[in-house]
């Protein structure tokens, strides 16, 4: 079983890296708050995929599942709070553009 699991290591690592790049690029390049959060979600999906694959390969699926459940809880809370902040900023500036929300910086 371990030999078969090890064969899965490289394809999963490869696609995890690719999805991570998509999320990172989306978060860094966009000027829209909601799209930046979507990029963050894509990053988290890549990490979840990685944890589950490593849990299966090392035969510690139960531990990986408990870590993923914790991560999902953190993910929901982060997104809920971030969405609240974005809506609050939108009410002030009527824009989701990062470039128009720089009052704190100036």
């Amino acid at each position, binding site marked *: 079983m371990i030999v078969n699991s090890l064969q899965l290591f490289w394809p999963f690592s490869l696609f995890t890296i690719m999805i991570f790049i*998509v999320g990172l690029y989306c978060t860094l390049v966009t000027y829209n708050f*909601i799209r930046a959060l*979507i990029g963050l979600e894509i990053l988290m999906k890549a990490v*979840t*995929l990685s944890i589950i694959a490593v849990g299966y390969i090392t035969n510690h699926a139960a531990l990986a*599942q408990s870590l993923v459940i914790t991560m999902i809880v953190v993910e929901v809370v982060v997104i809920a709070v971030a969405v*609240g902040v974005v809506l609050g900023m939108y009410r002030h500036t009527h824009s*989701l553009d990062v470039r128009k929300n720089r009052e704190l910086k100036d």
Partner: protein
Amino acid sequence: MLAFILILISLTAVALWAAMTRSLLRSAICLAMMSSLLTMIMFMLRSPLAAVFELSVCAGLIPVLFISTISLTHPLTREEVLQHMKDRIRRFWYLPFIVVVVGVALNMISVVPRLALPLPEIEKDARTVLWNDRPIELLGQIMILLAGVFSVVILFKESGKDDR
């Protein structure tokens, strides 16, 4: 193995679509699709409890949060869309090339792992690990949830005050 590769390719394609599509609504729907594909992988990798959480929370709740936010904000006018379109294409057209080039390059390297794997543990149930072995983690989850709830309450309380 082929099924895994097909699902992983679909997952990457949907992630690219979510990042590159102009409509935020479509991006949110793509996120739900990503979570569904991830759920399939989790079931295949014998992690059913995490898969159920992923399907109900990440494919159900989070897209709803995003769609509610998008519906609470005004969409761009046609002129604004045309104005932003060129800028978006200029910024995002590199992304598929970067992903494909990195994928091909890493595939050519094709690292064969020589990991010193730990001995297979006695197969435990995820519930046993979560409730018996890691109770502090559950306490942390409760605290994070409470912190999130209070943060959201404070955020919307302040905005309610402004409206009055």
